[in-house]
């Protein structure tokens, strides 16, 4: 039995369909991420799981119980909001115990829960303060404390880290992960930040315009994107997507690329040969991650599936751990990730290793993967 089951859920506001049939099953103890650009319907879906919004059709079940017509308080859930949503007129202690009070849980038990939760989140010293006296990170801790106090079947997080500054966000991210591992809680977590999605999730649902484009583990979403949108959305810097004609050389199907006057032929990986051969003579979109175009220093010796090519460097962006350089393939800017000790300047020619074993190809019309 799954902790949360979403079956063909649709949502319409008048004639506008904002969710177009979502189906997701979340296992007990699983950390599911809903990720996508703003307006993709991820927060709407979360609100509908919480019962703060009604669904137009379909079914949502929590712990095997259909909750379509249950109010939020009867769904056995807790939610953490982006704006923290702490009650400004109550102390931290009362914020945490408010839900328990409403549920008429005995006083002693309330106190015990508050002290257990505040110890877990290290907010014991803050219990008698007002929310206005807390920093952003502390407020988010209290908001999580309020959710934990309820000990629900399902935790819902609505972009909880988006209001924090970059450093604190990384810290809190690590803490949420630790908390999840310790509590074995089932979590649905909405974010627009693909790094949060990659680091936290057991599985990621990549959403766009009310549809789930791919639902898979972070590594799968990264290495094996279902379509052009997922390929472009997950990864930072994003995957390079280049339009290129399919050609055949020595019985091997691949794509033709050029840099300046120099033409390259990149053969497709073995598994895609068959699928791609139908495209010979037509254009496809080929995807290659920045780290698959590197230099010899970081790659060591050339391996199977790697080819070495010379290209002209357009722009150099040092980031510290890596240096990103831009080259041009088929008039498209392409990002490559090279070792920072590789001293290159813009305008220079440089030698780059292309790892062709992970090339992916997309249909330019349907944007689906060619397999």
């Amino acid at each position: 039995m799954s902790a949360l089951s979403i079956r063909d859920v649709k949502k319409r506001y008048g004639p506008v369909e904002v969710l177009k049939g979502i189906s997701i099953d979340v296992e007990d103890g699983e950390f599911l991420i809903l990720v996508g650009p703003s307006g993709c319907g991820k927060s709407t879906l979360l609100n509908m799981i919480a019962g703060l919004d009604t669904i137009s059709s379909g079914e949502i079940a929590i712990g095997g119980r259909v909750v379509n017509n249950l109010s939020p308080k009867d769904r056995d859930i807790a939610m953490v909001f982006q704006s923290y949503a702490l009650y400004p007129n109550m102390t931290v202690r009362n914020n945490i115990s408010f839900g328990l009070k409403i549920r008429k849980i005995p006083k002693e038990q309330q106190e015990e829960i508050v002290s257990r939760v505040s110890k877990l989140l290290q907010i014991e010293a803050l219990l008698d303060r007002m929310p206005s006296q807390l920093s952003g990170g502390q407020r988010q801790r209290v908001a999580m404390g309020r959710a934990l106090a309820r000990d629900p079947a399902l935790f819902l997080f609505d972009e909880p880290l988006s209001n924090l500054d970059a450093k604190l966000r990384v810290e809190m991210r690590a803490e949420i992960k630790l908390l999840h591992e310790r509590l074995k809680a089932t979590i649905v977590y909405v974010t627009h930040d693909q790094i949060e999605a990659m680091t936290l999730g057991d599985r990621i649902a990549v959403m766009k315009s009310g549809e789930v484009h791919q639902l898979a583990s972070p590594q799968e979403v990264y290495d094996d994107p279902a379509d052009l949108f997922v390929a472009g959305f997950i990864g930072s810097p994003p995957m390079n997507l280049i339009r290129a004609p399919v050609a055949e050389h020595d019985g091997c199907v691949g794509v033709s690329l050029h840099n300046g006057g120099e033409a390259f032929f990149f053969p497709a990986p073995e598994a895609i040969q068959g699928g791609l051969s139908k495209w010979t003579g037509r254009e496809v979109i080929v995807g290659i991650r920045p780290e698959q175009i590197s230099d010899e220093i970081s790659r060591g010796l050339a391996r199977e599936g790697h080819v070495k090519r010379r290209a002209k460097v357009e722009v150099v962006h040092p980031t510290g751990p890596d240096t990103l350089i831009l080259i041009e393939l088929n008039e498209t800017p392409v990002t490559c990730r090279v070792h920072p000790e590789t001293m290159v300047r813009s305008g220079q020619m440089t030698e780059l290793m292309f790892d062709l074993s992970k090339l992916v190809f997309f249909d330019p019309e349907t944007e689906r993967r060619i397999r």
Partner: protein
Amino acid sequence: MADGHHTQTAGSHRVGRIVIYALLVVFALYYLMPLFVMVTTSLKTLDDIRTGNLISLPREISFDAWIKAWSSACSGVSCNGLKGNFINSVSFVLPAVAISTLIGAFNGYVLTMWRFRGSDVLFTLLLIGCFIPFQVVLLPMAQTLGYLGIANSIPGLIFVHVVYGLAFTTLFFRNFYVTVPPDLTKAARIDGAGFFTIFWRIILPLSPAIIVVSVIWQFTQIWNDFLFGVVFSSGERQPITVALNNLVNTSTGVKEYNVDMAAAIIAGLPTLFVYIVAGKYFLRGLTAGAVKG
């Protein structure tokens, strides 16, 4: 050179300050003048008024005029002072202010946190209520009060003022509550709080600033109202503003300016009191956003 320049600008700065303060003092005196005349006149005897001039200080301070205005001045045929009318005013102003503020808060809460189909239209219609002149509703209101059986009574006046004030109080609270993050009500709903619990335990405790605004506004409006008072009440039940008018316009005997002035001050004191007590919250409430996110 540089020093000279410096002192020169400091000097002109100083002159500017003096001009500003002088102007402010002149304006303050100009506005305080009527009050000064009222207070001094009310403390004079009639002889003093006849022989002295308008802005002279009383030769001897006498509270007789105040006592008379409060308990024995004549308006029309009765000679009981303003005492009874003052109590009348208090007895309908306090409930009217409290009820209209509370309903306004409730309306604002519903219109922002529990939007429904047509809630914006409803709010717009309520807003139009702010622009309807008193005179327009006199006749229909008189009929309505008759139907309800509360014509010419204190409950009738309360009803009139609550209905008329709702447009304003709703506007105040609605505009205050749109700045409250909607996540707050969502969190409370998930915590298990219902419609009224959220209002009483979460939303209302956020509202002291806007409650003060609403109370001051409503208190001033209702206490100072003359038209509804003169139309919808009579005799014993008249509010103080109507009684003051009758008292000043009573034409038998000598014109007692000291009593008139004392009566006018008595009629104005409660609003002054409300401003002084709650005034510092007033501006804060008008300008402040609600909750820091």
